């Protein structure tokens, strides 16, 4: 009787173990299939352009079967570091990253790498060849070489202009500026009379342009590092009653700037493709998680010059 009792206990115990291991197996399978997380860390959600970048990346990650969470760094590198602390602690599987600072953000990416979390930079670059798995970047320099050539022709190779820069710690700011200057500086009769940063911010650009217009009345053009600043500069020009006299050039391909070109308020911009960039980043992260390891350190994405002559094809209704 005692032996039968022992046997029953043993069988129940074994069945219990099998049941438990079965549960564990099932949980592990669930983790593989459903519980992978991708973090989308964005420099700022104050600019609609970055909202598109963030939401598209998250949407594509979800479409590929991941949980995606968007983190807003508010253009603050301390905030960005906090996000990385949390992402590393929570064991995310990949980071789609739009950095706040080309140098300052490298450490965050390296910390993630050390924790085994791959990072894929989007749109903004970090100064490292190997910290991120890859960096998908608009070819800002080439875009501004195209814009610079159009600018020179629009100015008939002569005149005074203002440059409003983006964030000075961001490589995009300098790649755009360098591309533009690599062309325009060759024409000695085109003179830059003021250069100031407005941090890619529309309101700041408006204030900067207002101040410059008071100090320098003879301005023929303004080149802005993004469309938000171009729209801000245009508002200042409008308030000063100088529309039509000062040509405004931007960069990004934002919807209001496109409409501005169609309405002859903005002279030209350069169209970037944030949707393509964000989707490709998510696809690359998915490939990495599934075992792919062969990625170029950078993937530049071509940009296109938009002027009054070709704006129709870029307007949202078309």
């Amino acid at each position: 009787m005692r032996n039968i009792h022992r046997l029953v206990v043993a069988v129940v115990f074994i069945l219990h173990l099998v049941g438990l291991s079965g549960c564990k197996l099932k949980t592990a399978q669930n983790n593989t299939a459903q519980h992978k997380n991708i973090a989308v860390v964005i420099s700022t959600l104050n600019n609609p352009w970055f909202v598109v970048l963030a939401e598209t990346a998250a949407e594509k990650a979800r479409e590929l079967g991941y949980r995606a969470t968007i983190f807003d760094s508010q253009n603050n590198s301390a905030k960005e570091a906090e996000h990385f602390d949390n992402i590393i602690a929570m064991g995310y599987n990949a980071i789609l990253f739009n950095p706040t600072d080309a140098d300052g953000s490298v450490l965050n990416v390296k910390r993630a790498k050390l924790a085994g979390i791959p990072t894929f930079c989007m749109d903004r670059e970090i100064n490292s060849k190997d910290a991120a798995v890859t960096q998908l970047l608009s070819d800002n320099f080439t875009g501004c070489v195209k814009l610079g050539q159009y600018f020179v022709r629009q100015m008939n190779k002569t005149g005074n202009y203002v440059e409003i820069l983006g964030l000075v710690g961001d490589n995009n700011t300098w790649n755009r500026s360098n591309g533009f200057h690599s062309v325009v500086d060759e024409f000695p009769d085109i003179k830059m009379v003021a250069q100031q940063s407005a941090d890619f911010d529309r309101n700041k650009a408006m204030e900067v342009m207002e101040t410059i217009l008071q100090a320098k009345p003879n301005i023929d053009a303004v080149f802005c590092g993004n469309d938000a600043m171009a729209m801000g500069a245009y508002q200042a020009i409008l308030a000063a009653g100088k529309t039509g006299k000062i040509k405004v050039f931007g960069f990004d391909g934002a919807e209001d700037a496109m409409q501005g070109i169609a309405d002859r308020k903005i002279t030209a911009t350069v169209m970037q493709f944030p949707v393509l960039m964000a989707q490709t980043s998510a696809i690359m992260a998915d490939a990495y998680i599934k075992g792919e390891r062969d990625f170029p350190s950078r993937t530049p994405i071509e940009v296109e010059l938009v002027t009054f002559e070709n704006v129709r094809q870029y307007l949202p209704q078309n």
Partner: protein
Amino acid sequence: MKRLPKISIGILLGLILVYLSIDVQKLDHYKAKNQPKAFNAEHYAAKVWKEEIPEILANAPDITELIRNLESRKEHTLTKYGHKLGISKTCYFTVKGNARVVSIDEENLQLQLEDGRKVLLATSFIFGNAIRDGLGVVSVDDFLNMTDFNNVSIALNNRVKTQVIPDIKKSVKVGDQVVFAGALALNETTPDLQNIRLIPLTLSVTHGKQ
């Protein structure tokens, strides 16, 4: 009292040891010493110019042959001779050829190729990445950032402006027969073969106008 000299010597030796084991430097100097050397695009471009370009041009396709192949077997020709950067519709090529100069203006020479087609050869507005990317040997993966990579384009274009263009402007006349090599960009979806504009890498007059 007798132990005093020994103690003094001991303290002195200790101080010397501490002094020798510490290296005090100004933070700025230390940082500067440990910074990776700044990339010099002019040196890089000079090396490419001297060591890479001659061989690339020796193996470059003839421009008339390239155009003919682009018309008949576009995809194959793009893959065989073209170079692309990242996700892009622009394809860059390095080519060579023979032609006759049919006109000269402020920005270009107009050349008539051996098969009668006409192309432009730039003598002004030398910008962009046609040379850097057309050569096919400058990889973005070799650079710390896009700024350094882009500076290579500027440096290569500057060499064209300072070492190639002045000779062209000085020596070439309408009617001259020339041998040339250069780089060009084409849209891979709809290559505009009627409006090709080359950035020159070499040009020499073989038969001057009589």
